[in-house]
């Protein structure tokens, strides 16, 4: 699935991958891919800028460590990030409930 499809949802999805604990960039990307059953397979290189943006927004915090002799940057949710994730989850639940109610009778995805 192309990155454009996730536009508007990427931040929430990235925050969700960090809900269980800290991850580095590639682990975040893999969590997105695995958690979506392989549907959200973004170019790894574009996940990192999104993480940087979330960090500057104060939603996640990055820290360096040394793993296998390499410096690695891992990210964890901040309290603001956890609140933002909760809000996103509520908003999505509301939205998906409404859409399901409207499209519930029709086969999904819609048939031509």
């Amino acid at each position: 699935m192309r990155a454009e499809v996730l536009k508007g949802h990427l931040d929430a999805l990235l925050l969700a991958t960090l809900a269980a604990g800290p991850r580095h960039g590639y682990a975040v990307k893999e969590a997105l891919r695995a958690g979506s059953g392989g549907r959200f397979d973004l170019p790894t290189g574009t996940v990192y800028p999104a993480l940087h943006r979330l960090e500057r927004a104060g939603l996640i915090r990055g820290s360096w460590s040394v793993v296998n002799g390499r410096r690695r940057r891992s990210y964890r949710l901040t309290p603001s990030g956890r609140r933002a994730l909760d809000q996103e989850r509520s908003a999505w639940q509301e939205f998906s409930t409404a859409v399901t109610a409207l499209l519930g009778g029709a086969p999904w995805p819609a048939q031509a």
Partner: protein
Amino acid sequence: MAGPGMSGCECDEVGRDAVGAYLAAVAAQLTGPAPARAAITEELRDGLLETLATHRARGCTPQEATEAAIAEFGDPATVAAAFGPELAVVQARRVALGLLASGPLVGLAWLVAAAVNGWPPWRHQLAGLWLVLPLVGLALVVACPALGLTIAVTGRLGRRLGWVGRRASLPATAAVVAGLATVVADLTLLAMMAGQALTASGPDGWAPVAIAAGASLTRATLAGRATRRCLATRATLT
């Protein structure tokens, strides 16, 4: 910590060379403060080597794993462009804080020089080169709000408004405006000082004038370079 391929990378020389070439291609297209660019490159290196190790663990040959890892990361130009807004914000904030820190020092140096030499000659009406003095004031009127805006939107206020990384062109533009205004102010002060030095009634106290002129010259040079860098990062924003 969650994540696949955590056992580390035991890639061969071909893999490391390919990773190095990929990172060099990304780095060549990154603009912004050197420490920020270095940190990005280092983070990407770890990610690439981790990706490569994951593909090796899945049974790929070194060549296949290298090609797969690089393909998975995406086009270097796309990756570098995606960092553009973040780097533009970092650059703008760095420039604004530098100007903010240097402003009072340079201003104080000129105030001391003016006090020692009885400048400007208010009592005899401004004439000659002194007529451009209001240009300094005008430059400050432009620079101060631009600085304040840059620092505000790249800090907590920007976070609260959700501007961070999304409207990077705003702080980048504001930092450019502040930088240019600062250069104008410094060059104007230097021109007036040079005009005074060339007149028969040169300054009485040379030391404070030399200090102020040196400070302004240094600041104008650094502000000019920083403004060019801000323009470069701003140009990468799409």
